[in-house]
């Protein structure tokens, strides 16, 4: 127990150092790499005196360590600057749009785990047989397909050809008037569920299927492959053979005894796929016109909204560091050997 606690504390410390390093890199990109950072910060229509004012404000005329100190002080106050496009603080924009992206990310990762792990187990269980071949083909297609292309193909198939699912957006337009969702948290699934707005709940669910599936394709492939590899390794071990010799049911052995020990490497991959999914939402949100952080970032990229781009970079990296921390701690909890390393 003490060892685990020590591991968690040590891991927290490294995360803090990594975050400081991350801030150094974003500082470099935000203030040092561009030849005229002040002009970028205020946008293309700036007057020279405005640029001069911003230069003073950001401390761009002062030595680099002082500039970094100013940058860090702003960050710690939650000040990421103001978006050029919307004139609002970048942090407010991020907070407003986060629920839409997080809802997509959660459902996407849920799909990835719910499909990926059983598929991987199935594949390992039937190694070399048709189910294995099918799963392996599916996973290699999943990791080879660009998200921005898969999304379009799914739209063609499920909207244009079959007309089963909506084309884009989070909720149908007419529903906004007939059954508006009370914006409690802006997690629409949750909001419509809690207010028992079933019509809206169904509509929101339908809208989520294609984006979440597009986002999940790559993680499903990766998770299925890793689960398969880990399962194959575990299934060869003596204790599994012993369990078989005792006549314990195959289903119990596969899903209870083997999967439990194969789960640790799978968890690592789940953590890794979050990194993919974070940037994956950018493409999915453009394709499905999803009003989240990705759409905001991509618009900022196109409009050269520099404060917004740098704010999102820092936000994304921070989220990733925290996810990695959580995965490591979870792993130490599942597999006690890790905290001993």
């Amino acid at each position: 127990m003490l060892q685990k606690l020590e591991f968690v504390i040590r891991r927290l410390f490294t995360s803090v150092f990594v975050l400081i390093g991350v801030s150094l890199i974003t500082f470099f990109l935000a203030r040092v790499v561009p030849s005229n950072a002040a002009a970028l910060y205020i946008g293309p229509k700036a007057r020279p005196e405005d640029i001069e004012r911003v230069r003073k404000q950001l401390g761009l005329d002062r030595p680099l360590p002082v500039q970094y100190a100013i940058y860090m002080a702003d960050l710690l106050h939650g000040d990421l600057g103001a978006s050029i496009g919307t004139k609002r603080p970048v942090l407010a924009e991020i907070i407003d749009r986060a629920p839409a992206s997080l809802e997509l990310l959660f459902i996407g990762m849920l799909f990835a785990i719910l499909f990926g792990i059983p598929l991987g187990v199935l594949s390992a269980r039937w190694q070399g047989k048709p189910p294995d071949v099918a799963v392996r083909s599916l996973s290699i297609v999943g990791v080879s397909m660009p998200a921005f292309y898969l999304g379009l193909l799914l739209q063609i198939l499920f909207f244009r050809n079959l007309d089963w699912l909506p084309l884009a957006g989070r909720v149908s337009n007419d529903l906004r008037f007939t059954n508006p969702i009370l914006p409690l948290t802006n997690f629409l699934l949750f909001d419509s569920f809690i207010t028992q707005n079933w019509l809206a709940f169904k509509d929101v669910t339908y809208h989520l299927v294609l984006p979440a599936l597009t986002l999940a394709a790559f993680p499903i492939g990766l998770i299925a492959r890793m689960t398969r590899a880990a399962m194959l390794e575990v299934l060869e071990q003596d204790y599994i053979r012993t369990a078989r010799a005792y006549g314990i049911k195959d289903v119990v052995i596969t899903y209870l005894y083997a999967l439990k020990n194969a789960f640790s490497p799978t968890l690592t991959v789940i953590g890794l796929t979050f990194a993919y999914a974070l940037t994956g939402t950018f493409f999915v949100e453009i394709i499905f016109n999803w009003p989240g952080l990705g759409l905001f970032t991509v618009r900022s990229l196109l409009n050269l909204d520099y404060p917004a781009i740098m704010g999102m970079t820092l936000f994304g990296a921070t989220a990733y560091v925290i996810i990695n921390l959580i995965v490591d701690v979870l792993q130490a909890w599942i597999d006690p050997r890790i905290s001993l390393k």
Partner: protein
Amino acid sequence: MTAIPVLPTEPEIQSARTFRHVLSVIVRDPLSLISTIVIILFILIAIFAWQVAPYPLEGAGKTNVSHSMLPPSPGHPFGADRLGRDMLSRVIMGARPALIVPIGVVLFAVLIGAPLGAIAGYKGGWVDETIMRITDLFLAFPSLLLAMAIASALGRGLQNAAIALVVSWWPWYTRLVRGVTISLRERYFIEAAQATGVRDSVIILRHILPNTISPILVQATVDLGLVILAMGGLAFLGLGTQPPSPDWGLMVSEGRDFILKQWWISTFPGLAIFIVVLAFNLLGDTLRDIFDPRQYR
């Protein structure tokens, strides 16, 4: 110091044997063989794009408004886009930024990452600490997010997108090569070289780096798929190749508004990305089975 003749050492002979072994496995496995052929074919098409494309000028960006939105036909098997450009020619010409540039990106990432990894692994101590902590910082970002930030800091364009990807990919090779180097450092031929007074720089260049080539090749094959996807992604977002130049990712983006009626504009460039990435992934899987670079991590 007098030069000491360097005899071919045991692992160097072994690596030559591994290479022949790899070739024989690829030739015997139908999927890997097809993948290799597909990759070589696409690279040849990219190199000879001007000769292969039926309408090279349209492929490069010249508009032909009378052919606007022409559906696929024998004369234009992939149809034509909004500005009437032959899509087959566009896809062929787009192979350069979409395929050749990622190969260059991986090459540069190896050239930066591998020597740093060898130095870190060989020297150990504070040199190792410093180099590895720096790579940790870069790896703390999701690669594509870092590449997006760098590409927008440098300004849009194919060259800057490529630089951005190199900057976010080199640390993986530093990690890999460091691991291989640490396992090599204990071997007799390195100890023998050290004992006879061969300079560190010579040991790293002549004895360590050549022995890291096979794991690097495996890793690079797998990475190429990822870098092609990332490059396509940056182009799709408008951070890579700028119009009217052709690029697969950019073309998928250009056809997005017409996807429900003129499906061919996005479909064929996207298919090209998918096929190439699939080929690299299939080949990478085979190579990884023969020679797992992860065993050094």
